[in-house]
């Protein structure tokens, strides 16, 4: 499969069809995935996927399509239909494709070492059996993926990538007699699968051990206002909300709380959020064809930029700052043990189960796979406990950041102490 020639041919065909501007993305992904089901190796899944995504603009009118049938007749028919659909779309001066963006991104193991993957899954299964026998791995395993992509625009952008990485994941519950824990999960991506025991990757061993301690639970007996330590596995919920607030949807619909907050303090001065656009399995460019340089999104609590897409920027007049995926939070200077000992009554929150926070940031959610903190000590696992607060306020109420951090590949976060949450 020659994705370069497929992309170039499609770009040429689209311009011949009458489009003023076009973007073409051709990709091929090969994946091998070793699956665990109920504590046993179960399935080897190999997939070969290719895709051609086309974006065409004519007279300011835009339409997009994506197809997996790359035969020339099928592509020609897709372009014909795309042109017809674009002509019927409303005119929008904000529609443009990227110009003069170039780059090649390559990282990670490009070939799957199936014997290495098999060895790691065996390690994981043996660890579970020997060290955490009450834990059932319902789903999980290891995989390798290689994705090659070519992105071209009619305004001279040409971005290519060839990215390989390994991934390991576990999900399951611990049981004892007729008692079960809540299900729990973790996983991540890496370029270097060998040399580290499977249980030491992405906090997998810790999760298996902690889940065993979550079979028997207790609830707080009263409502109170207290502190939580948000574990790295739950930090992404907070970050996802912030990213939603500074992206296209909230900015175009004028519902962002941060639209006029660039340069202002929006979070604790302890907090600095930086991009990890080059994390394992990632490439530092955007789907709309822009190379994404490293970004310090929040620096000592100050928001440095909003992140609209090129379309969102042209629509709202907000500066364009290309933003790919993958994030990290700078570790702090406090040991996690000291953060725990500072809390009189609260919880170590490993997972937040909640609906989408309201547009004003208000939320309430069930804390799962979590432990009580009483008088500076981690005590029993929690059940049926909810916390309520506001995401924007939580960003400001971060009082401690741990020196320890958990590297999940494309995300690398420490533990955060956040005060003033309502428990019920």
């Amino acid at each position: 499969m020659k994705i370069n020639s497929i992309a170039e041919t499609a770009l040429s065909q689209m311009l011949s069809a009458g489009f003023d501007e076009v973007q073409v993305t051709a990709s091929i992904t090969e994946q091998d995935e070793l699956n665990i089901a109920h504590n046993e190796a179960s399935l080897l899944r190999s997939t070969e996927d290719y895709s051609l995504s086309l974006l065409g603009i004519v007279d300011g009118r835009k339409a997009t399509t994506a197809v997996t049938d790359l035969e020339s007749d099928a592509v020609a028919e897709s372009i014909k239909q795309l042109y017809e659909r674009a002509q019927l779309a409303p005119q929008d001066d904000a529609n443009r494709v990227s110009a003069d963006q170039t780059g090649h991104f390559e990282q990670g193991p490009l070939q799957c070492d199936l014997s290495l993957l098999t060895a790691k899954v065996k390690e994981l299964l043996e660890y579970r059996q020997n060290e955490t026998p009450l834990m059932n791995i319902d789903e999980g395993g290891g995989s390798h993926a290689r994705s090659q992509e070519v992105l071209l625009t009619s305004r001279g952008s040409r971005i290519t990538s060839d990215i390989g990485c390994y991934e390991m994941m576990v999900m399951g519950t611990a049981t004892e007699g007729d008692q079960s824990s809540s299900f729990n999960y973790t996983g991540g991506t890496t370029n270097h699968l060998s040399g580290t025991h499977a249980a030491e990757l992405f906090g997998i061993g810790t999760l298996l051990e902690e889940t065993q301690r979550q079979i028997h639970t207790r609830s707080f007996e009263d409502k109170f206002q207290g502190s939580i330590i948000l574990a790295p596995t739950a930090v992404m919920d907070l970050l996802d909300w912030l990213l939603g607030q500074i992206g296209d949807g909230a900015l175009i619909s004028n519902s962002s709380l941060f639209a006029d907050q660039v340069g202002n303090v929006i979070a604790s001065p302890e907090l600095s959020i930086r991009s990890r656009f080059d994390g394992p399995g990632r490439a530092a460019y955007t789907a709309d064809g822009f190379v994404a340089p490293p970004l310090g999104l929040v620096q000592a609590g100050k928001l440095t930029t909003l992140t609209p897409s090129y379309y969102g920027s042209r629509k709202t007049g907000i500066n364009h700052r290309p933003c790919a995926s993958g994030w990290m939070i700078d570790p702090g200077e406090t040991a996690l043990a000291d953060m725990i000992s500072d809390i009189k009554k609260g919880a170590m929150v490993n997972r937040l189960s909640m609906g989408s926070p309201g547009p004003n940031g208000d939320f309430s959610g069930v804390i799962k796979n979590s432990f009580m903190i009483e008088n500076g000590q981690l005590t029993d696992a929690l059940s049926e406990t909810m916390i309520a607060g506001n995401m924007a306020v939580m960003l400001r109420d971060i009082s401690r950041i741990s020196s320890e951090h958990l590297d999940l590949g494309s995300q690398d976060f420490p533990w955060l102490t956040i005060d003033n949450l309502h428990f019920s």
Partner: protein
Amino acid sequence: MNTLKTPAGVDYSEARQHEVRKTRMVMMDGNLTANTQTVEGGSSARVLNNGYWGFASIPAVDNASTEKVAKKAKENAEAMGGFGARNKLEIPSDSYQGEHGFNGKPPMGQKECVDLLAELNSLCEKKYPELRSSIFMFQEESHAKRYATSNGSLGLNSIHRATCYLFLIAEDQHGQPVELMQAISGKGNLNDLNLTLSGLEAELEELHGHLQAKRFAVPARGGEQAVVISPELAGMLAHEAMGHPCEADLVLGGAVTGNLVGKPVASELITMVDFAHSYRGEELMIPVYADDEGTESRDVVMIDSGIMKDFMTSRETAAKLGIASSGNARAYGFNDEPLVRMRNTAILPGTSKLEDMIAGIEDGYYLMKTGNGQADSTTEFMFGIDLAYEIKNGKLGNAVSDTTVSGTAINMLKTVDAVSDDMYWECNGYCGKKQPMVVSTGGPAIRGRVHLGGQ
């Protein structure tokens, strides 16, 4: 599509050719921010041999490609031998042959869709000028799956669904954004939803009325509360709270439901079923006549008058639990292996009237809309609540700010003391479990006690 050939010389095998078509159009404040159609299709094969599975897929359906994936799937099952010799897994061998398509209305044209979206935008600008934003989304999704299995199953399954989303964003009394969403979903394409400007105007008027109430919402009181759960929400409760823990793979993984068969888990008023394709003689929104393992799909009664009865299974999980396969093994895309998934999951209606159920609460809440929900192996559930009202002395009061409801289903369902006589089905959104999946949920209103998030 070409002739399907299942890999030979193995204990069991299946072959599938699967095409997924999607359309998505989003108009945000008059801007068409998404206008896309996708077509993804291909071939896959799955093999069970000597106790291990192998799977392979490719986005093509020609003979060479189907032979390639059959060979690769067989090789993959053999490669799993590296984990050690294993006994042959005996799985149910029943088979099904049949073709099930869908004959709906002709699809809406692109111009019709764009014009209707623009008209909705103009309508909101004119009638509700105080809104910060109005967003409208049209989505269509269709699946055509042709399958064959080594034990003689052969057929075609089709699923078509469409959804129209209406979002309105206003400012609350403190100048903060507040939003509400209404989804109109059904079987077929957008034309089958019978979308008209006047019909949607009525939907918008009702949604706008709730949004106005929500602008002045009061916070929910945290803790256990008496509630009436609307039919829309009860379907989600059925799916999340008891549906997932009754999936056989979760039962095998230690879900608490595994020890509860034959025991009371709910009020006698509660009967909960995962329907295969029909309810009261009418085809449902996600009709599954045979699953992707070629098993004829049957209804699964999970709770019968409060008693835990049965689980949803694939061939493998049925064999491991020693029960019949139910035809719940479904794959989302051509490159996905079948997993145990729900189809049309519902709590069945009772005999009470919704207005009487509200009137019977002195101090509580009417929970109307949910954005999402999550389940657990313990039957502990969570839903985000986007729209709710206080109930004071049997009457609806103030709207309530966004909150979350949680509980343990096997406790909460025992508190149910009334089930309404109406029934509401919907099929928007996705169920998530390694792969996404299209499902429908249904239910009447129910009254019970749950835990509300709040201060």
